[in-house]
């Protein structure tokens, strides 16, 4: 994929041939099956084209943004340690692979989105020295795009820790590997976070520092929402009544009270799904888009539009990802695990709470639920149609914001990305 971070490719030579080929071999079968899945779904090539054309518009591929931090001693150190972990089962390897091969899940294109909206909006009264003329964005906006990707990546890496508890690994060698993997994962994530802090500080804009820090806060909060199994995987909880958890005292709260989403009335399940995904995704992309417009000197009103664009785009994206296991011909019907808090499952639970019986089998480990059974139940219910509608509504909202901007190549690229996701 074009969105594969080139920077991570640079990391490759640092990892020994053996481990590199081991990782590649491990990954290949999955890659081919993934392609098979998407062959039934004609959107993937469009997606690729949309992203690679968008990258041309804002200068160079987003992945280059991260070159600087990847060439540092600390990351070289991490690469060496990762090598030691090859052969162990630590999820950090999977996270690293995900970043290397960039499944769409990882939304590596976040930095790209931030740059595109920057260019689409243009900038006011800025020092020429600050401008990257060829790309039509400011250097500070590029730095912000980089910070967005670093925060997102650090969160993924920290999420890749293993909860080690007594008795989980009776074999001391394995226990050691896992503890070491946790250490590396924690430190690598912290490294990215500390770099983000330094980079943000250097932009000398305290409103921006507060805004983006609050997005990091929201990401961490997301991991505490609802029921969790022993590895902190989420399970649906009984739905809360409407608008209960809106806290007006929370500074820079990314959640806004509302009664509906376009033509969809707000229901407890929709509210729950929205809360989870705004915290874990919408907040960061929304606030980054808001922040980049602030850097360009735009007023509060347009900044707010930027927030809405990022938020709705990421939610449309999430809805699309949630749908994937339920597309026709998907191998998930055979019992591959999927996210139990994905929109189709949540909507189905609202329609028929008896599905909670199946869900509750996973309270200790989400691996204990019968995915084939849940899959077939959800497939027959209304959850999938609701999710398609959810995806359309968020895509439409994102498109609406784009109309605020004048026609431009960046704006076209953004709308192409939304279309490629299957929206509108």
């Amino acid at each position, binding site marked *: 994929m074009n969105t594969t971070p080139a920077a991570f490719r640079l990391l490759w030579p640092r990892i020994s041939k053996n481990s590199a080929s081991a990782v590649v071999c491990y990954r290949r079968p999955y890659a081919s099956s993934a392609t098979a899945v998407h062959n039934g779904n004609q959107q993937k090539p469009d997606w690729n084209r949309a992203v690679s054309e968008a990258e041309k518009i804002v200068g160079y591929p987003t992945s280059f943004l991260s070159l600087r931090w990847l060439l540092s001693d600390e990351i070289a150190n991490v690469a060496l340690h990762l090598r030691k972990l090859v052969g162990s089962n630590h999820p950090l390897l999977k996270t690293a692979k995900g970043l290397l091969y960039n499944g769409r899940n990882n939304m590596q294109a976040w930095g790209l989105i931030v740059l595109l909206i920057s260019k689409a909006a243009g900038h006011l009264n800025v020092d020429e020295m600050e401008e990257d003329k060829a790309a039509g964005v400011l250097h500070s906006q590029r730095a912000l795009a980089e910070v967005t990707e670093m925060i997102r990546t650090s969160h993924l890496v920290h999420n890749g820790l293993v909860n080690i508890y007594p008795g989980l690994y009776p074999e001391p060698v394995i226990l050691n590997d896992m503890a070491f993997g946790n250490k590396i994962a924690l430190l690598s994530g912290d490294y990215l976070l500390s770099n983000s802090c330094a980079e943000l500080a250097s932009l000398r804009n*305290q409103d921006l520092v507060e805004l983006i820090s609050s997005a990091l806060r929201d990401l961490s909060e997301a991991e505490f929402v609802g029921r969790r199994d022993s590895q902190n995987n989420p399970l649906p909880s009984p739905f809360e009544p409407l608008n209960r958890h809106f806290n007006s005292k929370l500074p820079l709260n990314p959640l806004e009270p509302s009664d509906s989403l376009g033509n969809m009335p707000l229901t407890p399940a929709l509210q729950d799904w929205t809360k989870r995904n705004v915290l874990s995704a919408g907040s960061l992309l929304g606030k980054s888009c808001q922040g980049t417009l602030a850097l360009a000197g735009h007023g509060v009103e347009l900044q707010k539009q930027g927030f809405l664009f990022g938020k709705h785009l990421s939610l449309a994206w999430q809805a699309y990802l949630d749908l994937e296991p339920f597309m026709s011909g998907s191998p998930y019907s055979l019992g591959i695990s999927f996210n139990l808090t994905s929109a189709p499952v949540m909507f189905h639970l609202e329609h028929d709470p008896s599905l909670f019986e199946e869900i509750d089998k996973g309270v200790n480990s989400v691996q204990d639920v019968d995915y084939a059974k849940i899959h077939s139940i959800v497939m027959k219910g209304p959850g999938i149609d609701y999710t398609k509608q959810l995806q359309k509504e968020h895509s439409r909202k994102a498109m609406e914001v784009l109309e605020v901007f004048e026609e431009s190549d960046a704006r076209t690229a953004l709308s192409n990305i939304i279309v490629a996701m299957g929206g509108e």
Partner: protein
Amino acid sequence: MASRITSGARLCVRTSIDKLVCNLSRSRHHNAVDTAAVRRGSDRILQCYQKQSNRMRSDHQRNHCRRFTTLQDTDTDSLSSIDPYRLLDDDLRDVYTDITRELELNTNQDELRTIATYYFDGQGKALRPMVAILMAHAINYHMNNNGLDKKQREVAMIAEMIHSASLIHDDVIDQSDFRRGKPSVNALWSHKKVAMAGDYILAVTSMMIARLNHNDVTITLSQIITDLVQGEFMQLGSKETENERFAHYLTKTYRKTASLIANSVKAEAMLAGADDQLVDVSFEYGRNIGLAFQLVDDLLDFVSSKDAMGKPTAADLKLGLATAPVLFACEKYPELNAMIMRRFQEPGDAERAFELVHKSQGLEQTRFLAKKHCLEATRLAGKIAESPYQKSLLVVPDLIVNRMK
């Protein structure tokens, strides 16, 4: 033979101080110890430092060295009745309460609140907030400012919050079961949630930093976070050679401990509107206090009882870390070198190293080095206008060197 080594080691300490002082005045605040220069050392730590200091002396900054060698012990007798904690009682009393309130305000998740506020139970020494507020008052007095600014008190809270966020992540990394005499966070909650709680504290702290609304203060305080992480990375590797080890240890100590104190007092001075020179004095004061504090901490790891520290003794050895007492003991007992390289992993290593440290002069030498840093801190505090707060700044070094836990 024994006396030669002892005097050699003592010389080593002395020259290392000279070198440090020279380096400090040379380097900008980001790198306390010029590792590249130290790397050129020869086989033994001693020779390494001798060459270093010779090279430094011929440096254009030699007057800094001379000033240090003529430094005289400050008479601290008249200061013995001063208690900085009592002096700052009003400012410090609610620091933990205010931090807790800030952390509780920023989330709707009860479990996150509980983990994030776990170490702010008021049982800590609050050394960092104390030193920060002390410096703020002293500089304010020096500048004829009014009392403590609200923002200056926030910097003290921020210092303690960054410290706690790093403790929480350290707990996951070190797999320790106890801290400050109670179960550590990772013994009570899952690793992932603890990691996220650490990120959460960092995020809330960054929001507070932003609200200080001072560009250079934000950059200064962000430097602490970068240093902490880089220090943690340094602790990972044991690839350095014997000669590099001490410099590596000092740089690591700066990044992991001293940077926080140095940069937070620097931020206090900046908020007071101090000029660059005074800001530098604050920074250097904090750096020396921080280094002394960690040296004493490393020393106490070998002598304190479990009850006093709230954590097991010789914990560093068990984690595979070679701190100052071991590095000094190496001079007398070269067999420690092999143990350091294998990070005390073989059965009996930690016990044997513990014994050798006690048989050597390592503990005395570590204390000596800590005292030197305290003396330097005292000298720097002497540049600030006299006030009860400034006098307390003179007392803090003694508190640090003489503490039992």
